[in-house]
């Protein structure tokens, strides 16, 4: 049965609340029939009226409240209505939730999940379309995980709720409506798939059975599907074999799967929907350069939003945010004009 990302996340929340009465929802406008701005929490307040707390418009305050709940053994799942407003909870995350466990000599844990719907392409304008997760990468004590439509989004959320570390769970608004693409027996459609171990497995997808390839494209969250599309197009239209690496835990980053893939392809493109400077792509490129410089046969490229706010007009928004076209161009650029030595089939 096919499902959407939204449905998968919603069902996971339902079953977690059913199974574990320590799980609480905290956020704005969560109550049914409304059920949250993007409906990820729909139906929960009907089923668990005492454990779904709709809040005032107090992002800092309710992230703090949830941190307190987590400190006392509950498993709060916070929704920030638009990820753009994570900025308001920055102090709570950086100077409170993320520090407590270490600072208090591991006497306590803060099993807090903060869900943040990010991303544009819906015409919401400069303050409701951003992908701000890069600003929350690399906070000591704060894990960052991003969900994509591959495998099981709901299972990823389950892992996050089971995680004993404070964790930012990045969702993507456009992605909610996307169909989930299952990974089964090491395959997803035409792709062969490798997964790392652990709660947030990194996927590596290959259209060339991991025998090699022209380039490695790293993409997470909402960009992952675009990278997969670009890979499909590049194969069909230009006979280019691209491996797509999809990390889920953005911080701390396990760069090994990227290094391995670049070992096979020699070329690297990293994608993110947010603006690029000092972002996720920077970390991936720096980590790969640090670990496997010799494997890079061409200068790596970053695909990201232009360094401007996200305009409301469709023309501006489309030009600002990266799409499959930008990914394909970057792949072509790292491959260069000449055919590589390796050829498929």
């Amino acid at each position: 049965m096919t499902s959407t990302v939204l449905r998968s996340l919603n069902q996971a929340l339902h079953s977690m609340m059913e199974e574990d009465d320590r799980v609480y929802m905290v956020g704005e406008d969560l109550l049914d029939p409304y059920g949250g701005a993007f409906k990820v929490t729909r139906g929960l307040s009907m089923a668990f009226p005492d454990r779904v707390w709709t809040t005032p418009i107090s992002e800092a305050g309710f992230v703090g409240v949830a941190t307190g709940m987590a400190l006392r053994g509950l498993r709060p799942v916070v929704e920030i209505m638009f990820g753009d407003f994570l900025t308001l909870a920055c102090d709570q995350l950086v100077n409170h939730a993320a520090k407590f466990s270490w600072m208090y000599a591991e006497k306590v844990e803060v099993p807090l999940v903060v869900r943040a719907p990010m991303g544009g392409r819906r015409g919401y304008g400069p303050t409701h379309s951003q992908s701000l997760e890069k600003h929350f990468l690399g906070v000591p004590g704060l894990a960052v995980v991003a969900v994509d439509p591959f495998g099981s989004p709901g299972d990823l959320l389950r892992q996050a709720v089971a995680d004993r570390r404070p964790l930012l769970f990045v969702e993507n608004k456009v992605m909610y409506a996307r169909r989930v693409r299952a990974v089964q027996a090491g395959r997803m459609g035409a792709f062969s798939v490798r997964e790392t171990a652990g709660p947030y497995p990194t996927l590596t997808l290959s259209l060339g059975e991991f025998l090699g390839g022209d380039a490695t494209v790293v993409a997470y969250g909402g960009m992952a599907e675009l990278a997969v599309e670009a890979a499909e197009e590049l194969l069909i239209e230009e006979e280019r074999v691209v491996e797509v690496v999809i990390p889920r835990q953005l911080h701390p980053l396990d760069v090994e799967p990227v290094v391995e893939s670049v070992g096979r392809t020699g070329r690297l493109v990293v994608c993110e929907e947010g603006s690029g400077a000092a972002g996720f792509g920077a970390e991936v490129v720096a980590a790969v350069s640090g670990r496997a410089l010799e494997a890079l046969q061409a200068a790596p490229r970053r695909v990201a939003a232009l360094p401007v706010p996200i305009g409301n007009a469709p023309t501006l928004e489309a030009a600002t945010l990266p799409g499959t076209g930008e990914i394909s161009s970057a792949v072509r650029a790292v491959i260069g004009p000449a055919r590589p030595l390796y050829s498929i089939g």
Partner: protein
Amino acid sequence: MDGGSSEFVGPRQRWLASEGSTAERLYGQMWLIREFEERLLSLFEEGVLTGTTHACIGQEADCVGVINHLETGDVIFSNHRCHGHFLAYADRPEWLAAEIMGRGAGLVGGRGGSQHICYEDFFSNGVQGGIVPVATGIAMAEKARGTGRIVCVFLGDGTLGQGVVYEALNMASLWSAPILFVVEDNRWAQSTPVEKELSGSMVARGEAFGVASSEITSTDAEEIYGHFEGIVAAVRKTGRPHLGVIHTYRLCHHSKSDDMRPEEEVEARRALDPVPLLRSRLDEERASAIEAAVQKRLEEAFSWALDQPHPAAETLRDPLSTS
């Protein structure tokens, strides 16, 4: 129609120069706002417009009741629900329509859309609460520069949940900022009724910070207009902040089609709709004439706006680039 060259006339000056009784003038403005938004919503329904928008249907009396007291040079900082505020301030439906349609001729070139606009001394932003200290800073700057201008910032009942609002109240009070905080309490914040988002009392919150505070429960534009006359004058005269709460109601959905409030509740409030309320006091002929004139203006404004080109992607330039 683009009229960019003529000098801007503030709301008070325009009000004084306009004709008709107080009720007629207020009605004309309210009708403009109402009809503007109804047209907008139709365009969204037809799929001509995408993205989102927040109409102020039911709250037009706030816009006209407050803003007509502001002089040229006074500043308004508005929020996500800013169309009515803007139209009362600038009377420029064509530019607002173009902006919401994402056209280059819009107020800010299609960059901001429905909730991020700027024109002369009018600003709006879509992040709840954060505008309140910014508006306070503007008021302090005007005071420091000795211009005599005042600032008016609009916020909703739900936005009283944002802590930074109290930081701003505290500073405005400590430093005597000439600012009017207008709380439009429409009883709901998105899907959340006021009882679930707000404890205590709105007026008491202002007073607890030493900010003179008042409240009025009304959708009567004339009444609100009268109520704020003295308040605006006092802010200007004393240079002290004031928090003015208007208890009103939102008759439309929060944004586009997301209304899940109890039908009976909304229905009961329709009886207090500020537009028919004021119309009932007007001479039928005058009212019809006003409406017809507004319709004509809006017809032209929307068709002009729809004709404008979308901004070219080539205009995108890093705001940090110094060249």
